[in-house]
């Protein structure tokens, strides 16, 4: 596992560019009134998020984010949209209090993140307890992530896989072709 520490300038640039794009997407999202457009844009946000997760080397999380964020939640949100109007009502109050609240929460989170170890720091606490044992590959599965997911965290993963399979089943139901008794009517 000869990973470079930190990463090159271009990688940092890409990660930051993705973060900026995500922030822009959220701004657009907050200003849009049409709820269809909101669903679409949140799908875009999920895609950008998943790309960012790949850039940060968390491929399995990215996979789940893409499947759940862009796949299942789009379907669920559309189902919910069926039950309500497709235009968002104008808010009755000025949003200053929620804005201040979320701003404060954001600052608090940033303050908390200052204490975290650097990205990909080998001396970080999380890399010093069980990770070396996982890396020694006791369970004869070629890929480390797979070994951790399928063996050490098997039950956990079973739940996750159920979610992903449910997503798959939903998608099959969605794309199922309609049967016509009397031959072909091209869609």
């Amino acid at each position, binding site marked *: 596992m000869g990973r470079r520490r930190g990463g090159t300038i271009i990688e940092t640039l890409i990660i930051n560019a993705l973060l900026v794009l995500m922030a822009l997407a959220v701004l657009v999202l907050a200003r849009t009134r049409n709820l269809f457009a909101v669903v679409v844009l949140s799908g875009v946000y999920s895609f950008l998020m998943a790309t960012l997760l790949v850039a940060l080397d968390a491929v399995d999380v990215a996979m789940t984010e893409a499947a759940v964020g862009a796949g299942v939640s789009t379907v669920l949100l559309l189902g919910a949209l069926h039950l309500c109007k497709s235009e968002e009502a104008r808010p009755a109050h000025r949003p200053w209090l929620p804005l201040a609240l979320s701003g404060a929460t954001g600052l608090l989170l940033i303050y908390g993140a200052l204490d975290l170890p650097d990205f990909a720091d080998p001396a970080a606490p999380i890399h010093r307890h069980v990770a070396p044992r996982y890396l020694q590959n006791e369970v004869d599965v*070629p890929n480390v992530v797979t070994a951790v997911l399928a063996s050490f965290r098997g039950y956990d993963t079973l739940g996750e896989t159920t979610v992903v399979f449910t997503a798959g089943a939903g998608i099959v139901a969605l794309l199922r*072709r309609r049967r016509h008794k009397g031959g*072909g009517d*091209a*869609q």
Partner: protein
Amino acid sequence: MVRSISFFLTLALFWLLLSGMFTPFLLAAGAGSAFAVALIARRMDLLDHEGHPVQLAWGAVLSYWPWLLKEIVKSAWDVSRRILDPRLPIAPTLAEFAPSQKTDLGLVIHANSITLTPGTVAVEVAAGRFLVHALTREGAAGLAGSEMDRRCAALERP
């Protein structure tokens, strides 16, 4: 039956592609899952002439793809030139014409090819009537009885 076998082989190949491991256990697991999926798909009656088309004239398909690719590159180049031209020389046109394919699959291939070529998008597709939005008048004029139409009709097995 031919469809099920061909579907099974496609799935097994896809597994190989994604795993890239060639140990006996993983190969057997892949073949097993592909078999199970093929069995379920067969039971659910998903494998028909649309779901897994093996009945096409494959020789014509093989010569169709390179030709289509050439067309795509030509028209994509044309469209990008128009985009970058400061005067934006476009003349959007709707054209209606009758395609000559007989089967649903042939119609779908023709419509998809039209859409895949930049500069033309098939908007409405029905047997005997295509409605196409084209970026230029020339693009709209060349649709009825085009070479693409002829080639798509040749894909359908007689």
